[in-house]
């Protein structure tokens, strides 16, 4: 009898100690900054008396890992989710706990950039708290501009200037290229096309996300120009094989002068070549009829199966608080906070590179926050690839892609 009692006590102790431990899964680029996470989490543990276990995942493995865990009902208490359509997709599957009530009450809510909310909303209910964000810009190599006789402080602003500058830099014989066009069968290609689509005044889907909206003269113009950069003007390395991450590494080696990049590129390009510090910069991406950018970033979500939902929200709130973000930015210099007050009050406000980002951000659009987004994105990738491979003309490819997207969305 005594033994049984002892067993019960031990088991309940173990269960209790488990119950008090909060698990958070961190993915994406910030997962590499583990010592900062530890110091921030330690303060939370002392303040609330809740033990937190931090688990960090590299970007490549995180999505598969998270999806498998959520599908099995074995997720963490708090998790990072990419703003590129993950939150509504997971919400549709019933994997997430709604956060609408807490977000409505929270005093930090008015400080979040307003164009971020659609990315975490599913059927009018918010399921995530955006934590950090970014927007896509033109990343360029100043040294290569100088060598080609271009002004490194005056990067191209329009599509015509982009072609002119890129052609001046390109030297195919020595495999030096002006602009990197992403054409792989990955998300990068969709993002690349979207930059040009919105810059031409087009848009991907209708405002209610019910059907394709890129099969317009603007969309065709964007597709033609995007693929022509590689095919007609020949200013890009073989586009079907590379995307912006590859181009960033080539830029670090002075092989590609311009490509799409953003705040996350700074530490990565400097890691690829420490000597490039100060010799690269960002600018608003060249546009045709209107400035454009695509935003990205990560939100905090609470899986439905978490037994500690209240504590999880406390942690989410703490991580997104003004003080934690100020500390983060002072120490790390990035990524871009989702809080406007941190953007204007921290040291970022004085950095010219960040000023470009803050100026561009209000133009930034989100990827359609709908569960069908991954399939739609694939249709865009196939469309760009078919044109790059000369299998279809831009006119045919855009028609096929729009038909397929409408079929995916169930539109007539």
């Amino acid at each position: 009898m005594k033994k049984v009692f002892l067993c019960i006590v031990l088991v309940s102790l173990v269960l209790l100690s488990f119950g008090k431990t909060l698990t958070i899964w961190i993915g994406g680029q910030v997962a590499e900054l583990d010592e900062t996470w530890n110091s921030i989490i330690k303060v939370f543990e002392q303040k609330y008396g809740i033990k937190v276990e931090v688990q960090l995942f590299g970007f490549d493995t995180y999505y598969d890992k998270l999806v498998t865990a959520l599908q099995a009902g074995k997720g963490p208490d708090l998790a990072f989710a990419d703003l590129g359509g993950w939150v509504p997709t997971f919400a549709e599957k019933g994997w997430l706990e709604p956060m609408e009530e807490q977000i409505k009450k929270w005093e930090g809510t008015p400080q979040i950039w307003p164009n971020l909310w659609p990315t975490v909303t599913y059927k009018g209910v918010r399921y995530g708290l955006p934590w950090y964000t970014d927007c896509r810009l033109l990343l360029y190599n100043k040294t290569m501009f100088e060598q080609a006789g271009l002004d490194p402080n005056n990067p191209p602003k329009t599509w015509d200037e982009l072609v002119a500058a890129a052609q001046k830099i390109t030297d195919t014989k020595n495999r030096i290229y002006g602009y990197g066009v992403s054409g792989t069968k990955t998300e990068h290609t969709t993002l690349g096309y979207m930059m040009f689509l919105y810059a031409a005044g087009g848009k991907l889907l209708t405002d209610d996300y019910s059907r394709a909206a890129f099969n317009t003269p603007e969309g065709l113009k964007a597709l033609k120009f995007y693929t022509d950069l590689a095919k007609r003007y020949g200013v890009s390395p073989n586009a079907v094989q590379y995307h912006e991450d590859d181009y960033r590494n080539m830029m670090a080696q002075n092989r590609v002068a311009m490509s799409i990049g953003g705040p996350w590129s700074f530490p990565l390009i400097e890691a690829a070549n420490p000597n490039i510090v100060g010799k690269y910069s960002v600018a608003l991406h060249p546009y045709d009829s209107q400035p454009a950018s695509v935003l990205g970033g990560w939100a905090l979500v609470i899986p439905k199966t978490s037994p500690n939902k209240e504590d999880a929200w406390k942690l989410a709130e703490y991580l997104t608080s003004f003080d934690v973000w100020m500390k983060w930015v002072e120490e790390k210099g990035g990524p871009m906070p989702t809080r406007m007050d941190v953007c204007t009050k921290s040291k970022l406000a004085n950095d010219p590179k960040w000023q470009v980002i803050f100026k561009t951000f209000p133009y930034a659009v989100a990827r359609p926050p709908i569960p069908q987004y991954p399939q739609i994105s694939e249709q865009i990738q196939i469309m760009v690839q078919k044109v790059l491979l000369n299998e279809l003309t831009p006119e045919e490819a855009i028609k096929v892609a729009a038909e397929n997207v409408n079929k995916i969305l169930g539109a007539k």
Partner: protein
Amino acid sequence: MREQKIALRMVMPYVLIIIAFVVLLLISNIVMSFSTTDGNFTFQNYKAIFTDNVFYKSVFNTCIWVLGSVAGQILLGLAVALLLTQIKRGQVFFRSIILILPWATLDIVAGVMWKWMYNDMYGVLNDILVKIGLAKDYIPWLATPKMAMIAVIVANIWKGFCLSGMFFIAGIQTIPRELYEAAEIDGANAYGRFWNVTIPQLKPVLMTTLMFTIIWTINYFPLIYVMTGGGPNYGTETIVTYIYRLSLRFLEYNKAAALSNILFIIVFTIAYLFTKKMAREVAA
């Protein structure tokens, strides 16, 4: 009779584990493939597969991928095995360098390595070709669907020939020397000895190896995933890479389950035909 009983008992634990981990999962997969997302019975998932153009494309690609890889692996494996059995000094050294090294390389590492070798900005393959004058300019190996398919098949042949090579070495060593001596006395040259002694004697091993490599190649995923991700366009999309994308990219678990079952039936049929034929030959 007693020996049979002991053998049965010793095999039993393994059979139980197989039932637990394979048969049960298989059943849950079959159930999933006939369910809607709400759990109702439906044929919709199979219908969706058979009306999906990407499915036919992936079946076609799988055939090319298997045909090319298996032919290459068997032929190269046989050639290497014949050569290696001739080498008497330093056997261990040559066998480990030639046969163990590619096979022991991790799939992901091999994929990344080949991807970089094929690269058209820095790739070593292009560098060598240009330096010895075979190519004028750097060739983008992975940039068109057909070239990419050839490129992944070549990489897979390198990765997989070692296994068939090892099987063949083991097989060749069991061939009695007397057969060769007799053939030599009858006046058969090296070519004749190969066709009339080595090949017939090696036939059981050949069949087993063929079956293994075919099934493995159908199910082999990492190399394509790392090198091309199924692209460009749908150029190297095989059934397994498509299953992966259906489930983990598009979260269409039920459709992925349906396709997995179709693949299972294909693989099972191949294995069944081979084992039946082999059993008949052993009996004869």
